[in-house]
C-alpha cells in the first residue's frame, strides 16, 4: 500500500523538503573561498599596534624607526586617517536621549580599552608589518579606568568620556498597568538578582577584510567577511566620500558570523582608509588574540526582577531593572542598547499578564564594545522570566509544566499585545508545552530523578518557554535613522538554456540561504532545483537589501524570491501562450515544461521559450517584447515583527563534589511558521542551542581590575566542544504568518534564546534538595560549589 499523497508528492515541490545544500560540496572539498584566503596582485598587509591600557591619554607616537624598514609601505595614526574619514556615532533617533562619543578608525588622543588599535602599519607581509609594530613607541599617560559597573555609576566616578557628566549611555522606562497595586495585593512575590557575564561570538574564521581602492577609477572594492554588504557599501561611501555606485562590497564564503560581523570595526574602517592612501589592495585578518579584544562582546547584564502572583499561581505583574555595561562606545550603526531594549521588552512575553514595569540603564566602561550577537537580549529575558516562574512554582508547590500551562497566552487568544507593546500575530505556547511534555517523557524523567537522588546522584530537569523576534520591519532600525534596509530584492532570469539565475540580497553564512532560495524558486516556477543558480553577496550584482540578520533571511528574503518567481512565471507563460495560441491561465509549468494547466499534458519546454525569446524573437508576434528577467522587491508589512515561540527542556547531572555539570539531553519544540527545509531548520536549532549551552556553562570574557581581558585565547576561553554537548531532540509546531504568502518566520536565534535559561532552571532543580540556588551565568563549577557552601 502506498502512503497518501501530500503536497510534497507533486513535481518540483521543494518547500517543506529536506534537501542538502548545493553549495556545501565546495566547502567539503576545501574549495571554500573565504576572505582570509584571498590574495590580490600588489596586495599589502596591515597590522595594528594595540593599547596595553584600558584608559590612557596618547602623549606621543614615535614611528620614525619604522618608516625606514624595508617592506613597510605606510604607518598611519588616527590623525592620518581622520583626514580622509568622517567620524561615526553609534546612536539611533528612536532611542531618545542616547549618547555616544564620535569614533574614528584609530584614536586621536585617547585610548578607551585595552586592545584598542592605535597605529596601523602596512607592509609586504603580515610578518614584516608585525615586526615593524615592535619599533613603534607610544607614550601613554594612564587615566583612571572604569571597569566595574557599580563604580561606573557612583557619583564622582572616573569618566569614560571626560566631556560628559556621567557614564550613562541610555536610560529607558516602560510602565503599563498598575504594577504597585498588583504587588500590594499579590498572594506571592518572588524576587531575584541575576548576573549575565560577557561572552563573544568566537567565529572560527576571524574577521577578514581586503580593501582595494583604485585611484584611476575612483573605485573602492571591499572583499569583506560580513553578513551585510549593502550596509557597508553605504557606510564606506559616506564616511570616505566616494559615490555609492563606486563602492562595491563582496562577501564570499564566511567562516561564521552570528551577528558579530555586521558591526563597524575600527580596524576594518582603517583598512579601507589605508588602501585609499596607498592606492593598493590592503588585507587584514584578525588573529585569535585580536579577535578576543576587538570583536564585539555581548550580554554583561545585571537584572533585578520580581514577579507577583495570585494565590493559585496566576502571574499578576513583573517589575524589572536591567543594568548593562557596553564598553566605551555604542557600536555603529546598530548601537549597543538594542540588547537591553530587547531584554526589557521580551521579559514575560509568553505570559498573560498586564502589569509590567521596567527600567533599563546602559553604562559606559573601559572595555571593548558590546553589541548584537545571536539572540540579542533573548537569553537574558528568557532566563529572568523562566527562573522567576520556576521560583514561583516551587513556592506554590506547582510543577514547572503546570504553572506555565496555567499562565501562557492561550493558542486561540491571538492576536495579542504584550504589556511592553509587542504585537503577537499567532503563537503556540500551549501546543509546544504539550508536545515537550510528551517528547521528554516527563513523568519518567521525574521518577528517574527521584530514584537517583536516593543514591546521591543529583539530576536536574529544566524547561524554558521563549518568544523570538524575527522578520523585522523598518520599526527596528529604519525609524531610528539607520540606513539599514528591512526590504530585500531579487533579480530573476530565465537563461537562454532554460535555467534560472536568482540574484538576491539575502546573504549566505552557511545556514543554507542559497539552498532555501533555490528551493522556493524551483517550487514556485516548476523546475528542478539543480536548474536554479542563486547568486548572493555582491553589491554590484545583487539588488540592495537588508541581507541577513535578526532572522530575516527565510521570512523576508524567501518571500522576495517567491514573489519574484511568480512574476517571472507570469512572463514565461505569457510568451508560451503566444507561441501555443492559448490563454496564459490555461497553462502551467511542471518540471521545466509548459503544460496544460488542467491535464498536465506537456506542451513546450521552457528552454524552448528561452531559445525563441533570446535567439528567434523574429518568430514571435510583432510587438512582443519577452521579459524573461524580472526584478522584484519585498518589504514586510502588517505586523512590525513576526514573533516565533517555542519551549526547550533539558536533563543534566550535577556532581556536588566537583561542581561539574554534565548535560544529558536537550529538547526543543519550536514554531517558526512555514518550514522550508526541515534539515536546515533543525541545524539552526541545534547550532543555536549549543551556543546557548556554551553561554550557560563555559563562556565568559574575564577582566582584571585594571580592565585587561585575562582569558583572550582559545586555550583560556572555553567554548562548547563535542564531548560536552548532548544530543538534541527536536519537534516542530507550524503556525505560518499570514503576512506573507510563504508564511515563514525566522529560526536562527531560537536555540540560543532559551538554552541557557533551561540549564539554569535544571541546575537549580538539581540543587533544590540542598537549598542552594544559582542565578548567574555562566554556571561554573566554582559557582556551583559556592552555592553548595563547599568552596
Amino acid at each position, binding site marked *: 500500500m502506498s502512503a497518501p499523497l501530500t503536497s510534497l508528492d507533486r513535481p518540483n515541490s521543494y518547500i517543506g523538503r529536506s534537501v*542538502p*545544500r548545493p553549495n*556545501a*560540496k*565546495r*566547502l*567539503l*572539498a*576545501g*574549495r*571554500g573561498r*573565504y576572505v*582570509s*584566503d584571498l590574495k590580490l596582485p600588489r596586495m599589502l598587509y596591515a597590522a595594528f599596534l594595540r593599547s596595553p591600557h584600558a584608559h590612557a591619554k596618547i602623549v606621543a607616537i614615535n614611528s620614525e*624607526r619604522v618608516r*625606514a*624598514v*624595508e617592506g613597510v609601505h605606510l604607518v598611519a595614526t588616527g590623525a592620518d586617517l581622520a583626514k580622509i574619514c568622517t567620524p561615526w556615532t553609534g546612536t539611533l533617533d528612536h532611542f531618545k536621549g542616547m549618547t555616544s562619543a564620535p569614533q574614528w578608525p584609530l584614536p586621536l588622543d585617547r585610548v578607551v580599552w585595552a586592545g584598542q588599535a592605535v597605529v596601523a602599519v602596512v607592509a609586504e607581509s603580515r*610578518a*614584516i608589518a608585525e*615586526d615593524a609594530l*615592535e*619599533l613603534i613607541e607610544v607614550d601613554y599617560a594612564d587615566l583612571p579606568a572604569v571597569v566595574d559597573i557599580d563604580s561606573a555609576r557612583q557619583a564622582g566616578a572616573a569618566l569614560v568620556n571626560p566631556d560628559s557628566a556621567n557614564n550613562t549611555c541610555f536610560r529607558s522606562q516602560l510602565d503599563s498597568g498598575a504594577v504597585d497595586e498588583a504587588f500590594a495585593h499579590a498572594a506571592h512575590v518572588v524576587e531575584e538578582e541575576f548576573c549575565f557575564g560577557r561572552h563573544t*561570538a*568566537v*567565529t*572560527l*574564521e*576571524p574577521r577578514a577584510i581586503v580593501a582595494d581602492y583604485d585611484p584611476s577609477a575612483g573605485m573602492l572594492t571591499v572583499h569583506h567577511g560580513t553578513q551585510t554588504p549593502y550596509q557597508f557599501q553605504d557606510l564606506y561611501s559616506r564616511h570616505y566620500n566616494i559615490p555609492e555606485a563606486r563602492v562595491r562590497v563582496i562577501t564570499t*564564503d*564566511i*567562516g*561564521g*558570523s*552570528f551577528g558579530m560581523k555586521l558591526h563597524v570595526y575600527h580596524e576594518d574602517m582603517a583598512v579601507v582608509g589605508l588602501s585609499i592612501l596607498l592606492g593598493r589592495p590592503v588585507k587584514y585578518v584578525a*588573529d*585569535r588574540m585580536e579577535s578576543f579584544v576587538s570583536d564585539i562582546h555581548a550580554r554583561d547584564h545585571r537584572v533585578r526582577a520580581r514577579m507577583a502572583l495570585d494565590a493559585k499561581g496566576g502571574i499578576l505583574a513583573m517589575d524589572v531593572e536591567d543594568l548593562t555595561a557596553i564598553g566605551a562606545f555604542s557600536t555603529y550603526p546598530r548601537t549597543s542598547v538594542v540588547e537591553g531594549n530587547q531584554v526589557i521588552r521580551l521579559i514575560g512575553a509568553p505570559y498573560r499578564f498586564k502589569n509590567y514595569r521596567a527600567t533599563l540603564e546602559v553604562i559606559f566602561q573601559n572595555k571593548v564594545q558590546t553589541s548584537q550577537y545571536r539572540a540579542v537580549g533573548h537569553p537574558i529575558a528568557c532566563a529572568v522570566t523562566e527562573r522567576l516562574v520556576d521560583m514561583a512554582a516551587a513556592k506554590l508547590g506547582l510543577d514547572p509544566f503546570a504553572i506555565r500551562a496555567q499562565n501562557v497566552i492561550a493558542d486561540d487568544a491571538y492576536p495579542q499585545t504584550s504589556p511592553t507593546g509587542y504585537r503577537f500575530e499567532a503563537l503556540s505556547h500551549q501546543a509546544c508545552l504539550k508536545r515537550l511534555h510528551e517528547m521528554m517523557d516527563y513523568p519518567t524523567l521525574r521518577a528517574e530523578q527521584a530514584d537517583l537522588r536516593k543514591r546521591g546522584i543529583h539530576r536536574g530537569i529544566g524547561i524554558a518557554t521563549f518568544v523570538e523576534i524575527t522578520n523585522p520591519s523598518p520599526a527596528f532600525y529604519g525609524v531610528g535613522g539607520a540606513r539599514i534596509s528591512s526590504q530585500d530584492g531579487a533579480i530573476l532570469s530565465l537563461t537562454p538554456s532554460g535555467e534560472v539565475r536568482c540574484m538576491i540580497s539575502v546573504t549566505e*553564512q*552557511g*545556514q543554507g540561504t542559497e539552498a532555501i532560495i533555490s528551493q522556493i524558486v524551483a517550487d514556485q516556477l516548476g523546475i528542478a532545483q539543480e536548474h536554479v543558480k542563486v547568486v548572493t553577496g555582491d553589491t554590484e550584482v545583487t539588488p540592495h537589501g537588508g541581507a541577513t540578520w535578526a532572522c530575516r533571511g527565510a521570512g523576508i528574503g524567501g518571500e522576495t524570491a517567491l514573489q519574484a518567481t511568480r512574476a517571472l512565471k507570469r512572463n514565461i507563460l505569457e510568451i508560451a501562450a503566444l507561441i501555443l495560441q492559448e490563454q496564459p491561465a490555461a497553462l502551467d509549468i511542471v518540471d521545466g515544461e509548459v503544460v496544460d494547466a488542467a491535464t498536465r499534458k506537456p506542451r513546450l519546454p521552457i528552454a524552448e521559450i528561452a531559445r525563441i525569446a533570446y535567439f528567434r524573437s523574429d518568430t514571435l508576434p510583432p510587438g512582443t517584447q519577452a521579459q524573461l528577467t524580472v526584478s522584484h522587491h519585498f518589504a514586510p508589512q502588517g505586523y512590525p515583527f513576526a514573533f516565533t515561540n517555542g519551549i526547550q527542556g533539558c536533563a543534566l547531572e550535577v556532581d556536588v563534589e566537583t561542581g561539574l555539570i554534565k548535560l544529558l539531553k536537550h529538547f526543543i519544540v519550536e514554531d517558526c511558521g512555514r518550514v522550508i527545509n526541515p*534539515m*536546515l531548520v533543525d*541545524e539552526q536549532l*541545534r*547550532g*543555536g*542551542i*549549543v*551556543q546557548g549551552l556554551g553561554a550557560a556553562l563555559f563562556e565568559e570574557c574575564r577582566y582584571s581590575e585594571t580592565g585587561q581581558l585575562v582569558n583572550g*585565547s*582559545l*586555550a583560556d576561553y572555553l*567554548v562548547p*566542544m*563535542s*564531548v560536552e*554537548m548532548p*544530543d*538534541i531532540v527536536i519537534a516542530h509546531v507550524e503556525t505560518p504568518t499570514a503576512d506573507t504568502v510563504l508564511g515563514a518566520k525566522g529560526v536562527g536565534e531560537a*536555540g540560543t534564546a532559551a538554552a541557557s535559561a533551561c540549564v539554569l532552571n535544571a541546575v537549580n532543580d538539581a540543587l533544590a534538595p540542598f537549598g542552594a540556588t544559582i542565578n548567574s551565568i555562566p554556571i561554573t563549577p566554582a559557582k556551583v560549589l559556592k552555592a553548595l557552601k563547599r568552596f
Partner: protein
Amino acid sequence: MSGFDQTLLDEADETVRVRLIVNGRKVTCEVAPRDTLVDCLRDKLELTGTHAGCEMGACGACLVQIDGRAVHSCLVFAVQADGATIDTIEGLSESGVIADLQAEFHRRNALQCGFCTPGMLVNAQELLSRVTQPNREEIRDALSGNYCRCTGYETIVDAIDAVAKARSKGGGAA
C-alpha cells in the same frame, strides 16, 4: 638605527629551502625559519583548504595528514616538515580516500560555514583509521579538539557514525 633592528630584519629575510611531498607531488618551498606549516601550505602552495583558526593547536581547523597522521599544521614549523609527506583536504578530496565521509557530511548537512570542515574530515579519517567501530561517545571524544561554532556537533557525529558502520560492513573500505 640600532644594530638590533637590523639583526631582527636580517633574520626575517633569511629563507630555508624545504622539500615536501604534498598531495602526492614533490614540491620545494623557500620558507622563513619562523613560518609555520599552515602558512606555508596556504600562502606558498595556495592550498587554502587548510584553515588557521587559533594558531595554538586548540581549534583543529588546521589539521593535515603528515606521514599519514593527523597533525596541527599551525604547531609545526615548515622547516620541521622537510622531507615529510603531507596530505591536505585538497589531496584527500582528489584521491577519493574520504569521499564517503564527504558524501555523508553533505547528505546530513554536517557543516554550515565550512571553516572547521577540512579539519573535521582529517580528524574523522584519523579516528576511523584507528578504531573501526567507535561508539558515539568515542566519536564525540575524538572530535574534542575540533571546534565547530555552527552545527552543535550532532550531525557530524551522526555522519562519522554512519561512515564507520558502512566501512566496517564493506570490509574496512578506504
